Protein backbone atom coordinates (compact mmCIF):
# COMPACT_ATOMS: atom_id res chain seq x y z
CA UNK A 1 0.00 0.00 0.00
CA UNK A 2 1.27 3.44 -0.85
CA UNK A 3 2.17 5.34 2.27
CA UNK A 4 0.21 8.37 1.17
CA UNK A 5 -3.01 6.36 1.00
CA UNK A 6 -5.43 6.93 3.82
CA UNK A 7 -6.51 3.92 5.90
CA UNK A 8 -10.09 4.71 4.92
CA UNK A 9 -9.39 4.39 1.18
CA UNK A 10 -8.33 1.62 -1.14
CA UNK A 11 -8.27 1.02 -4.86
CA UNK A 12 -11.53 -0.51 -6.11
CA UNK A 13 -13.14 -0.39 -9.55
CA UNK A 14 -15.18 2.63 -10.53
CA UNK A 15 -18.86 2.13 -9.67
CA UNK A 16 -21.73 3.46 -11.72
CA UNK A 17 -22.14 6.25 -9.18
CA UNK A 18 -18.89 7.95 -10.15
CA UNK A 19 -18.92 7.54 -13.92
CA UNK A 20 -17.91 10.75 -15.63
CA UNK A 21 -19.71 10.09 -18.90
CA UNK A 22 -23.00 11.90 -19.51
CA UNK A 23 -25.64 10.07 -21.55
CA UNK A 24 -28.72 11.20 -23.47
CA UNK A 25 -30.89 8.16 -22.70
CA UNK A 26 -31.50 6.18 -19.52
CA UNK A 27 -29.81 2.77 -19.05
CA UNK A 28 -31.51 -0.15 -20.79
CA UNK A 29 -33.89 -0.50 -23.72
CA UNK A 30 -35.72 2.74 -24.55
CA UNK A 31 -38.90 0.80 -25.42
CA UNK A 32 -38.93 -0.63 -21.90
CA UNK A 33 -38.66 2.90 -20.51
CA UNK A 34 -41.79 3.88 -22.44
CA UNK A 35 -43.49 0.87 -20.82
CA UNK A 36 -42.17 1.96 -17.41
CA UNK A 37 -43.60 5.47 -17.90
CA UNK A 38 -46.98 3.98 -18.85
CA UNK A 39 -46.93 1.85 -15.69
CA UNK A 40 -46.00 4.87 -13.57
CA UNK A 41 -48.86 6.85 -15.12
CA UNK A 42 -51.36 4.16 -14.11
CA UNK A 43 -50.02 4.00 -10.56
CA UNK A 44 -50.04 7.81 -10.38
CA UNK A 45 -53.74 7.91 -11.30
CA UNK A 46 -54.39 5.20 -8.70
CA UNK A 47 -52.61 7.24 -6.00
CA UNK A 48 -54.51 10.42 -6.86
CA UNK A 49 -57.80 8.49 -6.86
CA UNK A 50 -56.99 7.16 -3.37
CA UNK A 51 -56.24 10.68 -2.04
CA UNK A 52 -59.40 12.25 -3.51
CA UNK A 53 -61.72 9.37 -2.58
CA UNK A 54 -60.39 9.66 0.96
CA UNK A 55 -61.69 13.26 1.02
CA UNK A 56 -65.24 12.00 1.48
CA UNK A 57 -64.37 9.08 3.80
CA UNK A 58 -61.69 10.44 6.12
CA UNK A 59 -62.98 8.69 9.26
CA UNK A 60 -63.39 5.37 7.46
CA UNK A 61 -59.92 5.52 5.89
CA UNK A 62 -58.26 6.46 9.20
CA UNK A 63 -60.13 3.74 11.11
CA UNK A 64 -59.31 0.88 8.75
CA UNK A 65 -55.79 2.08 7.98
CA UNK A 66 -55.07 1.45 11.67
CA UNK A 67 -55.88 -2.26 11.16
CA UNK A 68 -53.00 -2.72 8.70
CA UNK A 69 -49.75 -4.35 9.76
CA UNK A 70 -47.16 -1.54 9.56
CA UNK A 71 -44.34 -3.80 10.74
CA UNK A 72 -44.93 -6.04 7.72
CA UNK A 73 -44.96 -2.94 5.52
CA UNK A 74 -41.61 -1.86 6.99
CA UNK A 75 -40.09 -5.29 6.28
CA UNK A 76 -41.43 -5.18 2.74
CA UNK A 77 -40.09 -1.66 2.11
CA UNK A 78 -36.65 -2.66 3.38
CA UNK A 79 -36.78 -5.86 1.29
CA UNK A 80 -37.53 -3.93 -1.91
CA UNK A 81 -34.96 -1.21 -1.16
CA UNK A 82 -32.32 -3.87 -0.49
CA UNK A 83 -33.22 -5.77 -3.64
CA UNK A 84 -32.95 -2.55 -5.67
CA UNK A 85 -29.52 -1.93 -4.17
CA UNK A 86 -28.46 -5.50 -5.05
CA UNK A 87 -29.71 -5.09 -8.64
CA UNK A 88 -27.79 -1.83 -8.98
CA UNK A 89 -24.63 -3.61 -7.77
CA UNK A 90 -25.31 -6.32 -10.35
CA UNK A 91 -25.37 -3.67 -13.09
CA UNK A 92 -22.09 -2.23 -11.76
CA UNK A 93 -20.56 -5.74 -11.78
CA UNK A 94 -21.46 -6.45 -15.42
CA UNK A 95 -20.16 -3.02 -16.46
CA UNK A 96 -16.88 -4.16 -14.91
CA UNK A 97 -17.16 -7.39 -16.96
CA UNK A 98 -17.68 -9.55 -13.86
CA UNK A 99 -20.53 -11.87 -14.89
CA UNK A 100 -20.23 -14.17 -11.88
CA UNK A 101 -20.54 -11.30 -9.42
CA UNK A 102 -23.44 -9.86 -11.43
CA UNK A 103 -25.28 -13.19 -11.20
CA UNK A 104 -24.76 -13.34 -7.43
CA UNK A 105 -26.15 -9.82 -6.95
CA UNK A 106 -29.13 -10.61 -9.15
CA UNK A 107 -30.01 -13.81 -7.26
CA UNK A 108 -29.65 -11.93 -3.98
CA UNK A 109 -32.11 -9.34 -5.33
CA UNK A 110 -34.51 -12.09 -6.40
CA UNK A 111 -34.25 -13.51 -2.88
CA UNK A 112 -35.29 -10.16 -1.38
CA UNK A 113 -38.16 -10.01 -3.86
CA UNK A 114 -39.25 -13.43 -2.58
CA UNK A 115 -39.20 -12.06 0.97
CA UNK A 116 -41.61 -9.33 -0.16
CA UNK A 117 -43.96 -11.87 -1.75
CA UNK A 118 -43.98 -14.12 1.34
CA UNK A 119 -44.66 -11.24 3.76
CA UNK A 120 -47.39 -9.79 1.54
CA UNK A 121 -48.99 -13.23 1.11
CA UNK A 122 -49.08 -13.66 4.89
CA UNK A 123 -50.75 -10.23 5.16
CA UNK A 124 -53.34 -11.18 2.52
CA UNK A 125 -54.01 -14.52 4.25
CA UNK A 126 -54.66 -12.65 7.50
CA UNK A 127 -57.08 -10.24 5.82
CA UNK A 128 -58.93 -12.92 3.90
CA UNK A 129 -59.09 -15.06 7.07
CA UNK A 130 -60.98 -12.19 8.70
CA UNK A 131 -63.45 -12.15 5.84
CA UNK A 132 -62.10 -8.92 4.33
CA UNK A 133 -62.59 -8.50 0.60
CA UNK A 134 -62.76 -5.80 -2.08
CA UNK A 135 -66.40 -5.17 -1.21
CA UNK A 136 -65.86 -4.80 2.56
CA UNK A 137 -65.51 -1.00 2.31
CA UNK A 138 -63.93 1.72 0.17
CA UNK A 139 -60.64 1.71 2.08
CA UNK A 140 -60.11 -2.04 1.68
CA UNK A 141 -61.15 -1.80 -1.97
CA UNK A 142 -58.26 0.64 -2.53
CA UNK A 143 -55.85 -1.16 -0.23
CA UNK A 144 -56.39 -4.60 -1.76
CA UNK A 145 -56.52 -3.49 -5.39
CA UNK A 146 -53.52 -1.12 -5.12
CA UNK A 147 -51.29 -3.53 -3.26
CA UNK A 148 -52.33 -6.55 -5.35
CA UNK A 149 -51.70 -4.62 -8.58
CA UNK A 150 -48.24 -3.85 -7.22
CA UNK A 151 -47.83 -7.47 -6.04
CA UNK A 152 -48.35 -8.63 -9.64
CA UNK A 153 -45.66 -6.21 -10.80
CA UNK A 154 -43.25 -7.66 -8.22
CA UNK A 155 -43.90 -11.13 -9.67
CA UNK A 156 -43.32 -9.86 -13.23
CA UNK A 157 -40.15 -8.07 -12.11
CA UNK A 158 -38.86 -11.26 -10.51
CA UNK A 159 -39.58 -13.27 -13.68
CA UNK A 160 -37.56 -10.70 -15.65
CA UNK A 161 -34.69 -10.79 -13.13
CA UNK A 162 -34.62 -14.62 -13.17
CA UNK A 163 -34.40 -14.58 -16.99
CA UNK A 164 -31.60 -11.98 -16.87
CA UNK A 165 -29.73 -13.90 -14.13
CA UNK A 166 -29.94 -17.17 -16.09
CA UNK A 167 -28.63 -15.50 -19.25
CA UNK A 168 -25.87 -13.76 -17.30
CA UNK A 169 -24.96 -17.13 -15.78
CA UNK A 170 -24.48 -18.51 -19.31
CA UNK A 171 -22.12 -15.62 -20.10
CA UNK A 172 -24.74 -13.83 -22.19
CA UNK A 173 -23.71 -10.35 -21.07
CA UNK A 174 -20.42 -8.49 -21.08
CA UNK A 175 -18.94 -5.07 -20.38
CA UNK A 176 -19.87 -3.96 -23.91
CA UNK A 177 -23.29 -5.65 -24.23
CA UNK A 178 -25.48 -5.65 -21.14
CA UNK A 179 -28.64 -3.83 -22.24
CA UNK A 180 -30.73 -6.73 -20.91
CA UNK A 181 -29.30 -6.36 -17.41
CA UNK A 182 -29.92 -2.60 -17.43
CA UNK A 183 -33.47 -3.06 -18.74
CA UNK A 184 -34.35 -5.65 -16.10
CA UNK A 185 -32.79 -3.44 -13.43
CA UNK A 186 -34.77 -0.38 -14.56
CA UNK A 187 -38.05 -2.29 -14.40
CA UNK A 188 -37.21 -3.60 -10.92
CA UNK A 189 -36.32 -0.09 -9.71
CA UNK A 190 -39.71 1.10 -11.02
CA UNK A 191 -41.44 -1.56 -8.90
CA UNK A 192 -39.49 -0.31 -5.87
CA UNK A 193 -40.21 3.33 -6.73
CA UNK A 194 -43.97 2.73 -6.77
CA UNK A 195 -43.82 1.01 -3.37
CA UNK A 196 -41.88 3.97 -1.91
CA UNK A 197 -45.00 6.11 -2.50
CA UNK A 198 -47.56 3.39 -1.79
CA UNK A 199 -46.12 2.57 1.64
CA UNK A 200 -46.57 6.02 3.27
CA UNK A 201 -49.79 6.75 1.40
CA UNK A 202 -51.66 3.59 2.44
CA UNK A 203 -49.95 2.66 5.72
CA UNK A 204 -48.79 5.93 7.33
CA UNK A 205 -50.45 9.18 6.14
CA UNK A 206 -53.66 9.98 8.04
Amino acid at each position, binding site marked *: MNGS*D*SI*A*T*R*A*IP*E*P*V*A*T*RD*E*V*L*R*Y*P*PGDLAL*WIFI*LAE*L*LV*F*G*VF*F*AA*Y*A*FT*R*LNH*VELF*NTYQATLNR*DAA*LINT*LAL*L*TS*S*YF*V*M*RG*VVAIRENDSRLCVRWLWAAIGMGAVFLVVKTVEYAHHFGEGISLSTNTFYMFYLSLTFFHFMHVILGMVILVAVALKAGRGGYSRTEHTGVESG*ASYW*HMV*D*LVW*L*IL*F*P*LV*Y*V*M*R
Partner: protein
Amino acid sequence: MTTKPPTQPLIRPCTLVYLMLVTLTIVTWATARMGLSGLSLSLVVLGIALFKGHLLADWFMGLRFITGWWRWVIAVWLLLPGGLIALGFVLSYRG
Protein backbone atom coordinates in the same frame (compact mmCIF):
# COMPACT_ATOMS: atom_id res chain seq x y z
CA MET B 1 7.49 5.99 -12.00
CA THR B 2 4.22 4.14 -11.44
CA THR B 3 0.72 5.58 -11.76
CA LYS B 4 -1.38 5.34 -8.64
CA PRO B 5 -4.72 3.60 -9.18
CA PRO B 6 -7.74 5.83 -8.46
CA THR B 7 -8.70 5.67 -4.82
CA GLN B 8 -12.20 5.67 -3.52
CA PRO B 9 -13.90 5.73 -0.12
CA LEU B 10 -14.23 2.30 1.48
CA ILE B 11 -18.01 2.71 1.44
CA ARG B 12 -19.28 3.47 -2.05
CA PRO B 13 -21.50 6.58 -2.38
CA CYS B 14 -24.34 4.37 -3.64
CA THR B 15 -24.10 2.33 -0.43
CA LEU B 16 -24.38 5.52 1.62
CA VAL B 17 -27.49 6.41 -0.40
CA TYR B 18 -28.92 2.95 0.36
CA LEU B 19 -28.29 3.47 4.08
CA MET B 20 -29.97 6.88 3.87
CA LEU B 21 -33.00 5.29 2.19
CA VAL B 22 -33.20 2.67 4.96
CA THR B 23 -32.94 5.36 7.65
CA LEU B 24 -35.68 7.49 6.09
CA THR B 25 -37.90 4.40 5.78
CA ILE B 26 -37.47 3.61 9.47
CA VAL B 27 -38.27 7.24 10.36
CA THR B 28 -41.48 7.01 8.31
CA TRP B 29 -42.45 3.71 9.97
CA ALA B 30 -41.67 5.11 13.45
CA THR B 31 -44.10 8.02 12.98
CA ALA B 32 -46.85 5.51 12.27
CA ARG B 33 -45.86 3.23 15.19
CA MET B 34 -45.95 6.21 17.57
CA GLY B 35 -49.49 6.94 16.43
CA LEU B 36 -48.58 10.38 15.12
CA SER B 37 -50.99 12.00 12.68
CA GLY B 38 -51.97 15.38 11.29
CA LEU B 39 -51.66 17.35 8.09
CA SER B 40 -48.14 18.64 8.73
CA LEU B 41 -46.83 15.19 9.55
CA SER B 42 -48.55 13.67 6.53
CA LEU B 43 -46.96 16.25 4.26
CA VAL B 44 -43.54 15.66 5.82
CA VAL B 45 -43.93 11.89 5.35
CA LEU B 46 -44.98 12.48 1.74
CA GLY B 47 -42.00 14.78 1.22
CA ILE B 48 -39.67 12.10 2.60
CA ALA B 49 -41.21 9.55 0.20
CA LEU B 50 -40.73 11.86 -2.80
CA PHE B 51 -37.12 12.56 -1.76
CA LYS B 52 -36.50 8.80 -1.44
CA GLY B 53 -37.94 8.29 -4.91
CA HIS B 54 -35.65 10.97 -6.32
CA LEU B 55 -32.61 9.34 -4.65
CA LEU B 56 -33.59 5.96 -6.11
CA ALA B 57 -34.01 7.42 -9.59
CA ASP B 58 -30.72 9.30 -9.46
CA TRP B 59 -28.47 6.72 -7.83
CA PHE B 60 -30.03 3.32 -8.53
CA MET B 61 -31.66 3.94 -11.92
CA GLY B 62 -28.62 6.00 -12.91
CA LEU B 63 -30.55 9.05 -14.12
CA ARG B 64 -28.00 11.42 -12.61
CA PHE B 65 -25.77 10.67 -15.59
CA ILE B 66 -28.45 11.54 -18.14
CA THR B 67 -28.92 14.91 -19.81
CA GLY B 68 -32.11 16.48 -21.14
CA TRP B 69 -35.71 15.39 -20.70
CA TRP B 70 -34.94 11.87 -19.49
CA ARG B 71 -32.92 13.26 -16.58
CA TRP B 72 -36.10 14.65 -15.01
CA VAL B 73 -38.77 12.18 -16.11
CA ILE B 74 -39.01 10.40 -12.75
CA ALA B 75 -38.82 13.69 -10.83
CA VAL B 76 -41.79 14.99 -12.84
CA TRP B 77 -43.68 11.75 -12.16
CA LEU B 78 -42.96 12.09 -8.44
CA LEU B 79 -44.19 15.69 -8.35
CA LEU B 80 -47.46 15.13 -10.26
CA PRO B 81 -49.06 12.36 -8.12
CA GLY B 82 -47.20 13.77 -5.10
CA GLY B 83 -48.83 17.16 -5.63
CA LEU B 84 -52.27 15.61 -6.10
CA ILE B 85 -51.86 13.49 -2.96
CA ALA B 86 -50.81 16.59 -1.00
CA LEU B 87 -53.79 18.52 -2.36
CA GLY B 88 -56.14 15.69 -1.39
CA PHE B 89 -54.84 15.65 2.18
CA VAL B 90 -54.91 19.46 2.51
CA LEU B 91 -58.53 19.54 1.34
CA SER B 92 -59.47 16.71 3.73
CA TYR B 93 -58.21 18.78 6.67
CA ARG B 94 -60.07 21.88 5.52
CA GLY B 95 -63.30 19.93 5.65
